[in-house]
């Protein structure tokens, strides 16, 4: 009986505080702030304070919520919160410095499914809002989800193959991937997996919806697409999801390619992973955002199905045959 209560408390802490809701929100917003600040510095601007995304989020919470007359009210209001919740669940499956709240034999598959929900929520929410801008945005978001899913699956297969234990073809467990990296060194420095790492670095900004790949939420073209009609708290939830996605995807990159770095102390490993997350954010999102213009929709699709998928496929073949 006492064990059961202890377990409930433990899982409540995992879900609500670390690495669940509270921690991901705070760290995600901080990461988004760093991103905006560094982009500004790269453009020779002073830039907003690091807290800016947090202020934006709080302000949006205090604004009036308008539901358009021709919107499907239920879906319109529920979509942002469903997306946010599924992102927080995703974090629980990703090991942060070897610390994994809920591990299973099929982590990567679960993550693959959970990561599509926020994007689908955006598509449903946008379609439900009844605005033509949101309609265009939803269809573009669908193109971008099709673009990055293929290379993402190939990357996960390549890493899963490299980390497979004796007698298995693949592993889908992130804990096993971490164990393998402790034995064989981080996969980022395995020559066979470098193309997969490059592909993953390009998948991250597309999944998050960052600048060169943000066809679905193009502010300057279609008024942020699916978000065009949103205001107040639901918009705040979408903005928060965007910030958390940055953290989730970079943490996934760290788990896949920068695992196995252990100092012996769990809290130090966690801090180290968070530093890695920040560095990966700066490399694959901030730098690209500051130097590039936006892809057109068909360019995005072509780029991901040829170049990025090609990189991932090369890695998969190398891992399989070398």
């Amino acid at each position: 009986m006492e064990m059961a209560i202890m377990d409930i408390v433990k899982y409540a802490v995992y879900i609500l505080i670390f690495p669940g809701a509270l921690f991901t929100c705070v760290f995600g917003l901080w990461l988004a702030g760093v991103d905006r600040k560094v982009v500004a510095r790269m453009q020779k601007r002073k830039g907003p304070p690091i807290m800016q995304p947090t202020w934006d989020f709080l302000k949006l919470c205090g604004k009036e919520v308008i539901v358009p007359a021709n919107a499907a009210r239920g879906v319109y209001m529920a979509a942002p919160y469903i997306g946010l919740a599924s992102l927080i669940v995703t974090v629980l499956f990703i090991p942060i410095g070897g610390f994994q709240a809920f591990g299973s034999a099929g982590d990567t598959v679960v993550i693959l499914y959970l990561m599509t929900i926020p994007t689908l929520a955006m598509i449903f929410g946008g379609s439900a809002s009844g605005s033509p801008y949101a309609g265009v945005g939803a269809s573009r978001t669908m193109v971008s989800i099709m673009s990055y899913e293929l290379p993402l699956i190939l990357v996960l297969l390549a890493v899963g193959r490299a980390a497979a234990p004796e007698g298995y073809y693949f592993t889908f467990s992130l804990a096993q991937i971490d164990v393998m990296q402790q034995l064989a060194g981080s996969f980022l420095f395995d020559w066979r997996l470098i193309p997969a790492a490059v592909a993953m670095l390009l998948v991250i900004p597309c999944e998050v919806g960052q600048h060169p790949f943000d066809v679905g939420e193009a502010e300057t073209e279609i008024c942020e697409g699916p978000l065009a009609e949103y205001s107040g708290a639901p918009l705040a939830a979408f903005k928060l999801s965007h910030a958390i996605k940055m953290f989730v995807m970079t943490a996934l990159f760290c788990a896949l390619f920068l695992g196995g770095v252990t100092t012996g102390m769990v809290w130090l490993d966690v801090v180290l992973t968070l530093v890695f997350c920040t560095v990966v954010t700066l490399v694959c999102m901030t730098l690209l955002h500051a130097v590039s213009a936006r892809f057109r929709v068909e360019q995005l699709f072509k780029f991901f199905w040829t170049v990025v998928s090609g990189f991932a496929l090369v890695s998969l073949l190398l891992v399989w045959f070398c």
Partner: protein
Amino acid sequence: MFKKLIDNAAAKSPWLYHINAGSCNGCDIELVAVLTPRYDAERLGFKLAGTPRHADIVVVSGPVTVQSKDRVLRTIEQVPDPKVIVTLGSCPRSCNVFKGSYSVAGPLDKYVPIDVSIAGCAPKPEAIIDGLALAAKILKEKREAKK
């Protein structure tokens, strides 16, 4: 506690929506200059929003022509509360040199209450930043006044 945090946040993250109500483009260019690296209004949290639904501050430039009047009012109605209306340049306040023209329906304060007026034809970017900072302060006051 949360109310106070949100009240403070209101002044720190004002998003702009800009409406051109028949302006000559002079003021519009100056508003864009405010967002360039030289003046960088983003350091105060200002951001140009794509749609009125995301906006806190509505910036209107131009003398409000007969053609644009309905659109301006409709756009302002779409902005969620609390909102602040700022006029940019002399035109929306007095119709400037267009006063008395058959095609002008302004000034704007015939239709909606105005919170901040930025004077000039066209105003300097420094004046615009000053006006927008004042608008952000008013935004916070409006938010605090709301129960």
